[in-house]
């Protein structure tokens, strides 16, 4: 099935069994085609209830996540790309050292960052942030947009204070860069939380 170059997948540290499981899932989603499009994600019933459904699906097609040099959105992804996205959710391995852990963490946070930063300019602006919060709270139809906006504003305010310190009354905070983003997530141990439990670590990387 598919000619995945071994080198690029070696870094994924997923067992062959899991690859097989994901492959089966891929085939189910793509209805036995070689690639998936955005429409294929509609066939997942549980995903409908997720308020940030759009962003999640979008993340699969985001070229930045697919480690491609260009920018923008892909129209369709193949199995290798699918695996690439899934690799962001692998759990930490016992034998990782400091540097690897750090790189690992940065990768995961970058994935999340790309979800916030929808216009791909490397910064989360106020409008983008508002957009995120509105989507997040969209599960409740009776919450006014105003409240969502003010929450987003408050959060940006906090971000500004953490990253830039005390601001003068005229200073404008452009947006959250990736470094600022990292600072905000410092308290939260994303490495242990951001993994899908079934991608369990036992074995060394090997794949067909």
């Amino acid at each position, binding site marked *: 099935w598919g000619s995945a170059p071994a080198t690029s997948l070696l870094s994924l540290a997923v067992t062959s069994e899991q690859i097989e*499981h*994901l492959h*089966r*899932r891929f085939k*189910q*989603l793509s209805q036995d085609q070689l690639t998936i499009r955005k429409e294929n*994600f509609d066939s*997942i*019933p*549980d*995903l409908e209830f*997720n308020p*940030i*459904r759009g*962003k*999640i699906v979008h*993340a*699969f097609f985001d070229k930045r996540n697919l480690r491609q040099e260009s920018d923008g959105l892909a129209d369709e992804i193949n199995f290798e790309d699918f695996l690439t996205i*899934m690799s962001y*959710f692998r759990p930490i391995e016992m034998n990782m050292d400091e540097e690897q852990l750090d790189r690992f963490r940065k990768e995961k946070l970058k994935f*999340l960052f790309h*979800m916030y930063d929808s216009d791909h300019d490397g910064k989360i*602006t*106020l409008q983008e942030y508002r957009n*995120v*919060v509105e989507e*997040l*709270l969209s*599960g*409740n139809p*009776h*919450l*006014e947009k*105003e*409240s969502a*906006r*003010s*929450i987003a*504003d*408050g*959060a*940006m*305010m*906090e*971000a*500004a204070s953490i990253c830039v310190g005390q601001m003068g009354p005229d200073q*404008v*905070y452009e947006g959250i860069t990736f470094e600022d983003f990292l600072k*905000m*997530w410092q*308290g*939260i*141990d*994303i490495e242990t*939380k*951001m993994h*899908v*439990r*079934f991608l*369990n670590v036992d074995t060394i990387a090997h794949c067909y």
Partner: protein
Amino acid sequence: VLAALAALAAGAAEARTISDGQPPGAAAMGTGTSPSPSGTAFEETRLHVFTLDYPHVQIPFEITLWILLASLAKIGFHLYHKLPSIVPESCLLILVGLLLGGIIFGAEEKSPPVMNSDVFFLYLLPPIVLDAGYFMPTRLFFENFGTIFWYAVVGTLWNAIGIGISLYGICQISAFGLTDITLLQNLLFGSLISAVDPVAVLAVFENIHVNEQLYILVFGESLLNDAITVVLYNLFKSFCQMRTIKVIDIFAGIANFFIVGIGGVLIGILLGFVAAFTTRFTHKIRVIEPLFVFLYSYLSYITAEMFHLSGIMAITACAMTMNKYVEENVSQKSYTTIKYFMKMLSSVSETLIFIFMGVSTVGKNHEWNWAFVSFTLLFCLIWRALGVFVLTQIINVFRTIPLTFKDQFIIAYGGLRGAICFSLVFLLPPAVFPRKKLFITAVIVVIFFTVFIQGITIRPLVEFLDVKRSNKKQPAVSEEIYNRFFDHVKTGIEDVCGHWGHNFWRDKFKKFDNKYLRRLLIRENQPKSSIVSLYKKLEIKHAIEMAESGMISKVPSSVSLSDYHEGKIKPLSPTEMENMREILTKNLYQIRHRTMSYNRHSLAADASEKQAKEILIRRRHSLRESLRKTNSLSRERPVLAFCGGFG
């Protein structure tokens, strides 16, 4: 009059001594006649102004007193709020029973009344099982069905046979004086003592952070395990009563095992569908809707028992099948009634059983033998731990989410014995089991040990084993957002990559369900969800209130944030931060309908009710706001509609 009173008192005492031979929850209904103290000769008596006729009401009177006592005991120990979290309720109930047994024993110098087979199996057990089956989260159950089945069936067999054989080995040692207990009797004893009743642990689970997997495993295992134990018990009991056992009998036993289980499930499912279908037509007679639920479930139980199939499996299957469809057909009030009544029945049942247990401990039903009792306890612990460990190693190969050591420890240590063991041992026919009292003593010791010692210590032990979390500071608003965002992402990815291929069957079933079953079993013209219907009712009620009372409003205003342009942000005051935090925590509903912890003794507020209430509150607020805006003449500062005031 005095003479008459004395005569009646004597008559009452006589009646009491006769009926003391029967249990108070008396199975035999027809023996309430009191013998006349004066024999058969007709004597003329004067008219009595005041009479005391206890035997006339004895049976219902005593039943009521028992139940009342049990409930008062419950009130008693919930008075101190910390108590239930430290000590499982079962412990406290047993203590009350002990106390009561001591009193009865002290007062009458004879053993207190004990339970009777029919009473237990026909009246006390079904509510408990129904409760467990009805509140079982079906989706999670079926996702983990393989593992649950594995633990319940193979685990129970392992325990039963292991304990039976090792005890037989011990019995062979003549120094202990146990050589008259045969292998079959030991096997029977082993099977009845492996009935695990982790409800006490489940109550403690609420305070420990237990992941869903573990929760459903323990819960599901206990349910299936009860069924398996009863089947094994009956099997071995019939073996014990047969003179010779041929090979064909063993095969018949195995076949019987499967038939009993599957047959029970089929009966349950059938009656579940019939119940769902019946409720389709009950919209004119709402008042008796709950009755159907209980009647059909009970019917499935006793029908299964009639054919000597597993009543427990039947009632569980019936409850699980009926659940979905009935909930959509019945009215909101009936639904609430069903839930509460079910909890009430099962709570009463369990309480009664534990109190009986305490009462029966006191008295002359015992035969103490150090070796047997201590080895029983030892083997129970060893075999359970071994069983869980070995089985987990095997099943982990097949699971995508393996069970960790902590999970295994909880499953093994949480193997508390309870009501079922106790009842089964009491029901052993003494003719076939001359050493019955020994068995009773051993079972009681095991139950006490597990319920008290393990029940109380499991929570500290789990906390000890738990990974230390980093110290939490008050999360900032943005952190809250990030965390929630992140949870949604994770859930989404999990949905995309699917769990273990069960999705295929689940989706197929859902399609079949939508196409055929729902059309058949659910009444037409139903609102999509109970939230909407509840909301509609509340809205109507609110509209009436509004029309009658006029408006009241004092909306906390906040700094206007709506009149700046991109990029500029004004600082927010702490109260506003608080308000925002409140909004976030209130609005970010549970991502998936996470299972509420099962608690036999209370009903968690339904998520949809809470949501509906909140929707109503916000709607009310927004209505107020819009009315205020049209009424106000000038606007100095645009006021932000802020929902922070609702607690």
